[in-house]
């Protein structure tokens, strides 16, 4: 390992890529797992998994991560035997593959520092044993001339197709020499919609003008259907190699595996990376966004200039021209900003996919039956936010698996299905994405939560008793709270839910809990789509303007005059008591009028809510937030934003305000209990 710097950029990229590859491998393995149960193994998926193992082997050898190289090598061997049909994919084989996969994940997570050599030996022998279960089924007779030119894999696919009763056709096509590649790709893509392309063989008919190919395809459809698909072009003819089913055409039968036929596409150039994507450090994108926002300030200077020119009679023509050019600049700037933001967006499905393996593992370990379903996988979110969501979602799911889902026997007794269901869903709502984790378990008992919180000394008994149901539920987010007395492998260390709270707050997200005893619980996480640009509500209080991140705003209410001298009231909105604070009082500023009037902005962060009272609402703006200097640490101020000609305004920090309000409230409650 001497010459590889494990802290280097290259090494980090290698780890990131290994993670990606393992991610797609995991998905493939899950599909295979389902396939084993259903009795249909999709060769495309098997191939993809094999390729992942192969790539991983190569990469880890380059970076000298020996454990990973050894393990992925034996994994690759086993997968190779599988895809060639030398061994059959059974539950045992799949298990040994899955275990090797989990170990690979562990190795990547250890960043190449751990020593896994002993575990690897176990896995290697398990994989080796699996490989001995060779498949010795008799083979059908096929034209030896054809067989001799096929690779072992192609031959295997040919036999499999025959075994499935598919018709084998040889599609002979000719292409002009100068553009045969395009024509070939177009034809094979077309064929793949209805058949499996088993092999492409260069034909002996090739002359100076034309290239001829024999494309071996397997399909459930008849020759007529294939001709129809190709469209009867003169450049293509179809010969029959084998037609085991002289059954009448039954195209729709293909529907069953339709979804999985597609991945076969790469099998000819199998090991080359076909991806045309660029991996970019997100910091670089942030830099671009900064430059764009500075351009915005330059633009607003031009705006001022053009306005000045227009008002001068002698130059008004130039002023108008400048104004037009400036409008154009503005549009392009906003396009530019949108495209950079778009680059940061990824689908949340790639995150959801990771939990499938987790849920499967938990249900295997805990003896509970848990299924996971996902909705809205294609919802897009900023890459950074997706990563930040991984931990909170994992903790929520583990808690559900441990605490909410009942054992199968209990569930049957309650008249529920044996298996519990965890649903992960995402949908966009304005500039937010709402991620929901729903289970059909036992629901949360607020009385139990109260007594546990008191027992653990997290809150005073009187305080716990006085809380509303919703507030009591929120006690689960306190650090050190855990209702399980035994520490389990998956959760119950009492770290889970406060991690959720912390990470979601960091994202200026909002958590809601919706629970019904015996029916289940829904955790609703509302997360901003991106943190790079902040949507802000510009408000005015005591003559000064501030920006309040709209991410945190839940609703705005008009309020009556409330004297500042009095303790600020609690508002009851939707059955929840929400403490309030007068902004200028919070910031320690003098108000000319002694009473707060105007608007109450109900803001939330994680599970907390607060009502911030301000004089006026001005406008909504997209702003880029800049930190105040390190020298100025002001609670309740997150930073400032330069709005060009409108000057610089401070951006309020809802976390800071909430912390302050809740600390006051709690100390008040503590006081009551001691008297």
């Amino acid at each position: 390992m001497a010459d590889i710097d494990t802290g280097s950029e290259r090494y980090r990229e290698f780890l990131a890529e290994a993670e990606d590859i393992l991610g797609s491998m995991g998905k493939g393995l899950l599909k295979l797992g389902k396939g084993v149960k259903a009795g249909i193994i999709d060769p495309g998926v098997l191939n993809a998994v094999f390729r992942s193992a192969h790539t991983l082997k190569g990469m880890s050898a380059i970076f000298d991560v020996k454990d990973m190289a050894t393990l992925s090598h034996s994994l690759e061997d086993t997968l190779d035997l599988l895809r060639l049909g030398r061994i059959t994919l059974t539950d045992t084989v799949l298990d040994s593959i899955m275990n090797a996969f989990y170990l690979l994940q562990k190795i990547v997570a250890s960043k190449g520092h751990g020593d896994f050599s002993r575990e690897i030996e176990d896995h290697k022998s398990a994989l080796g044993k699996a490989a001995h279960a060779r498949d010795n089924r008799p083979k059908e007779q096929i034209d030896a001339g054809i067989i001799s030119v096929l690779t072992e894999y192609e031959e295997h696919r040919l036999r499999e197709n025959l075994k499935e009763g598919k018709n084998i056709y040889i599609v002979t096509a000719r292409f002009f020499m100068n553009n045969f590649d395009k024509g070939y790709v177009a034809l094979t893509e077309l064929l793949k919609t209805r058949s499996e392309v088993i092999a492409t063989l260069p034909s002996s008919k090739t002359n100076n003008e034309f290239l001829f190919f024999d494309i071996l395809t397997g399909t459930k459809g008849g020759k007529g259907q294939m001709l129809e698909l190709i469209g009867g072009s003169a450049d293509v003819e179809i010969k029959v190699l084998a037609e085991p089913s002289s059954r009448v055409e039954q195209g729709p039968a293909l529907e069953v595996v339709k979804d999985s036929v597609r991945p076969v596409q790469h099998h000819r150039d199998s090991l080359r990376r076909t991806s045309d994507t660029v991996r970019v450090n997100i910091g670089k994108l942030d830099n671009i966004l900064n430059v764009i926002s500075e351009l915005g300030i330059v633009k607003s200077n031009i705006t001022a200039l053009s306005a000045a020119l227009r008002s001068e009679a002698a130059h008004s023509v130039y002023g108008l021209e400048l104004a037009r050019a400036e409008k154009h600049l503005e549009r392009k700037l906003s396009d530019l900003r949108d495209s950079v933001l778009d680059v940061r967006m990824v689908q949340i499905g790639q995150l959801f996919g990771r939990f499938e393996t987790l849920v499967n593992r938990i249900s295997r370990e805990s003896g509970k039956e848990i299924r996971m379903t996902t909705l809205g996988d294609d919802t897009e979110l900023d890459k950074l936010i997706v990563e930040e969501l991984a931990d909170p979602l994992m903790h929520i799911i583990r808690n559900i698996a441990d605490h909410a889902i009942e054992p199968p026997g209990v569930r049957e007794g309650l008249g529920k299905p044996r298996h519990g269901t965890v649903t992960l869903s995402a949908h966009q709502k304005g500039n937010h994405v709402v991620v929901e984790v729903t289970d059909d378990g036992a629901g949360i008992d607020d009385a139990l939560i109260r007594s546990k919180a008191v027992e653990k000394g997290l809150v005073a008994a009187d305080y716990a008793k006085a809380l509303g149901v919703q507030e009591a539920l929120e006690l689960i987010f306190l650090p050190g709270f855990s209702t399980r007395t035994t520490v389990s492998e998956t959760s119950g260390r009492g770290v889970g839910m406060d991690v959720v709270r912390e990470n979601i707050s960091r994202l200026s997200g909002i958590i809601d809990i919706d629970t019904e005893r015996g029916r289940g619980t829904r955790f609703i996480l509302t997360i901003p789509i991106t943190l790079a640009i902040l949507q802000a509500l510009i408000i005015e209080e005591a003559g000064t303007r501030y920006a309040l991140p709209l991410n945190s705003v839940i609703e705005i209410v008009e309020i009556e005059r409330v004297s500042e001298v009095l303790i600020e009231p609690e508002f009851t909105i939707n059955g929840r008591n929400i403490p309030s604070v007068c902004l200028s009082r919070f910031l320690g500023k003098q108000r000319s009028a002694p009473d707060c009037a105007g608007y109450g902005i109900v803001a939330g962060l994680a599970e907390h809510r607060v009502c911030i009272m301000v004089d006026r609402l001005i406008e909504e703006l997209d702003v880029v937030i800049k930190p105040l200097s390190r020298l100025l640490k002001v609670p309740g101020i997150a930073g400032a934003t330069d709005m060009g000609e409108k000057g610089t305004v401070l951006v309020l920090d809802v976390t800071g305000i909430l912390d302050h309000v809740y600390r006051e409230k709690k100390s008040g409650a503590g006081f009551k209990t001691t008297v």
Partner: protein
Amino acid sequence: MDAAAKVSVSVSGPVRASGLSDAPKRQSTVAPTVDNYSKSLERQAPEEKKLQIVSFFLGEREYAFELLDAVEVLRARTLTEVPRTPDFIKGILSVRGEMVPVMDTKMRLSEGQFGNVRFGRVLVTSVGDLKVGFLVDRMGGVREVAVASIEQVDDGFVKGLINAPGGLILLLDVVRLIDFA
């Protein structure tokens, strides 16, 4: 020291630290690391160490920072006040997107305080990557003084007294001035 002539400086343009004026005379073949750079300085002027300073006025009194501490001079536009900060922090100024706290230098030095901020200038300094602006009435200029002629003092924010032809200049210690957090 007649060489220490006053160099006028455009108040709106940036003031850049330019290093010692005779630095390029003897070229070194050694790579210019921080270490051998300062060594080469020592070799060149062992008998006559010079210090470049940038001076400014608070009322009629002249003060200075080391030129290396200074970044640029800006007009004092409207500052954005920040609540719950010391009184001598007048607010923040956005300098090309970066938020720079601006200090009322008079108040910090207990020499009164600025009336209307708008007529002054902001001298932006940096300590490492930390930038702080100082409100001043007007700029003096950049000049070079012999280190030997600086009287070292340890009096709060003043670290040296410079006897210049035009009168006494108080050399300020930026690090101490911004140490209030």
